[in-house]
């Protein structure tokens, strides 16, 4: 199968100008490729740069050198060199991301937050909300919470909102940053099933899974980010 997401010689170094230009190397020389139906798990100790790599793949962090390429609308696009509106279009149509933390927008209800990725694709409000409701129900989020903004929700509840938001648009490529970190066993199982379903429909998945059991259940292979650690 041909890949849909690739990096070549990708490196990330933070330069802290307030510390006299101190360079904080994170990783260097990562070349990877992910195909539809695959799930690549990023491994390594905490602080090894897994999340930084995932953020580079999302265009949230700038690549210090090397390249991130993605199949977008049947063409390869260099995500690391793309203009802001191209990156946003990739995120709208091709690339989904489940972050560890939910960024809450004041006053917007849970249902509307989850429906938003579909709305951005032009799906009508009622239809988008109906699908959002299905995802929230699937993730066992109590219906009385759907019409509230998630600001006051527990960590596990927010994470499920986040997962529904990240998966609802059925993007061809998914980035998952510890999607099960604050979930109980039942909900972890649901998320594992959802990831299996995403792979079965042909999604390419790159994820960080803290929980060994979850990782073994969903990953088709692993990449140890420690190997690409830059030494000071």
């Amino acid at each position, binding site marked *: 199968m041909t890949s849909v997401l690739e990096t070549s010689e990708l490196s990330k170094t933070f330069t802290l100008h307030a510390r006299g230009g101190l360079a904080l190397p994170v990783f260097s020389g990562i070349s990877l490729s992910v195909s539809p139906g695959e799930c690549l798990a990023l491994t390594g100790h905490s602080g090894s740069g897994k999340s930084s790599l995932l953020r580079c793949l999302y265009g949230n962090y700038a690549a210090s050198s090397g390249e991130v390429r993605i199949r977008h609308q049947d063409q390869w696009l260099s995500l690391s060199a793309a203009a802001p509106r191209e990156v946003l279009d990739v995120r709208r149509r091709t690339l989904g991301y489940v972050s560890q933390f939910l960024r809450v927008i004041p006053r*917007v209800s849970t249902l509307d937050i989850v429906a938003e990725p579909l709305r951005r694709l032009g799906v009508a409000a009622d239809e988008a909300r109906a699908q959002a409701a299905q995802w929230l129900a699937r993730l066992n989020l109590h219906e009385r919470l759907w019409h509230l903004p998630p600001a006051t929700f527990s960590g596990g509840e927010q994470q499920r909102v986040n997962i529904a938001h990240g998966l609802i648009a059925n993007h061809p490529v998914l980035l998952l940053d510890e999607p099960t970190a604050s979930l109980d066993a039942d909900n972890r199982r649901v998320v594992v099933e959802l990831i299996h379903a995403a792979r079965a429909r042909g999604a390419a998945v790159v994820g960080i899974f803290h929980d060994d059991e979850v990782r073994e259940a969903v990953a088709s292979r692993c990449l140890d980010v420690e190997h690409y650690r830059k030494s000071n």
Partner: protein
Amino acid sequence: MSSDLLLSVRNAGKQFMQGQRPRWACRGVSFDLYPGEVLAVVGESGSGKSTLLRLLASRLACDEGSVFYDLREEAGNGVAASRGASGLVDLAGLSEARLRWLARTDWGFVEQHARDGLRMNVSGGANIGERMMALGARHYGKLRGEALSWMERVELDVDRIDDLPGTYSGGMQQRLQIARNLVTHPRLVFMDEPTTGLDVSVQARLLDLLRELVDQLHLAAVIVTHDLAVARLLAHRMLVMKDGCVVEQGLTDRVLDDPQHPYTQLLVSSVLTP
């Protein structure tokens, strides 16, 4: 894809006299804006961001460089005078009357102080109706109907339609100013610190409203703000200014989460996150 550019700024600069010496308030600014794109201009006071906004909106003339605008779908469909192949026209070449027409129909300008953007001696409804009248609308019932529907849209109590804006609260005045600007369906809106000076809860409501309207109306906007949270919530892209120059620009979340320039790093790390 470059054919659907809305606004193109090339090397724009403005000089003021400070004492006896000329000083560049902003200089060398270049960027492109596409329909539906929201750009935040951030930087501390005196960085030149408000001057830049005034250059873009032709409230000031460039001393250097140019601002080009796409006149093809201009509201009211006036005859395009000096249309280039791409539809982009140098604003410096347009007559005063033509610029006024643009400002009243195809552009909006939301001032930081609502009083500066409203007519305080006529009713809320008349404030909304004014721009429609500039486009030739005369039917009283239609004007009033449209004013009512816009008041609802920006969450103003429709019973206040005949009251003077001076009797409105600060948040209400700001929402009225927004309705007044958007009623002609402009393609481009300039906003100068639209939420500064409002209570936090009022700010949140206004931001949420702006976010929705920008999305629904596919508005392009340039928002000057010193509030990075406002930029994060509303803008697709950011431009960071210091001492009149753009020191960094890019995708909003990239600039805020992985700032590259020393000044942007300082700006981002100086914010208190509750």
